[in-house]
């Protein structure tokens, strides 16, 4: 059994209105050294797969089809055996 920790954020080329608002808020609080904030989603997915490679392939597939929207979003994930 594997556990995929999937991180989805807006692509760098896409303006992130939530991230901008959080950045401005942090600046207002005095954290002036904060250069950028990207807000995203975090998913934990349990995958019952025969091996690491199969699990990885499946997670990529799911990210591309449903979990992330490739037009505006990037995804990364960590896969750990559990």
């Amino acid at each position, binding site marked *: 059994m594997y556990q995929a920790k999937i991180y989805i954020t*807006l692509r760098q*080329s*896409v*303006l*992130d*209105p*939530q991230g901008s*608002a959080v950045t401005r808020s942090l600046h207002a609080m005095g954290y002036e050294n904060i250069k950028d904030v990207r807000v995203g*989603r975090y998913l934990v997915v349990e995958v019952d797969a025969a091996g690491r490679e199969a699990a990885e392939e499946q997670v990529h597939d799911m990210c591309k089809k*449903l*979990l992330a*929207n490739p*037009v*505006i979003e990037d995804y990364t994930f960590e896969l750990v055996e559990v």
Partner: protein
Amino acid sequence: MKFGVVVFPGSNCDADCFNAVKAVLDQPVEYIWHKSNSVEGFDCIILPGGFSYGDYLRAGAIARFSPVMEAVIEFAHRGGLVIGICNGFQVLLEAGLLPGAMRRNDSLQFICDDTYLKVENADTAFTALWQPGQVIKIPVAHGDGNYYCDENTLKELQQNNQVVFRYCSPAGEVTAQANPNGSIDNIAGVCNKQGNVLGMMPHPERCAEKILGNDDGAMLFKSILAAWQRRVK
């Protein structure tokens, strides 16, 4: 002409769309439950506004995999008329029937207000009864209506005249100030290359009768019927 209004769990403008077809056109209209796997017998499919699947994951992302969407995609590829309004537009984007994606409004606020739109393309089945460049007033109600596509796609949209509506001032000026949500190029509605699939964030069904205080939206429904009548002839 037979209209079908798709109902996803969480759709909330389905009855308004149904009523607009009845009241404006007096044409047959039926609801299509999202689990149906056929749109046989329909001449125009309306994907209504609302919060399908609670907007979980992304607006429209889960609805796009409803059984009915396979039939809708096939119907669209055969040239069938499909219009997605608000959440319906988001579903069309997720389904890949229209290019681009929706981001959260740049103000991060849910906007429920009248907007002015410029009819940029009056050559589609959905807009033919308007004058090119005509300014109309149609309300929006959305939190994720900030349309985005990459530069190449935008160029393509412009070249093919696929930008159907732009947000504008009451006088028809397309300005940043008139843009309620941050959409790229003030885009409020786009169609596919073939012109048989339209997505728009504003709600024509909410302003299709005089009794609602505004009937600018009626022209969209009348255009669809007129286009279909021309086709059938």
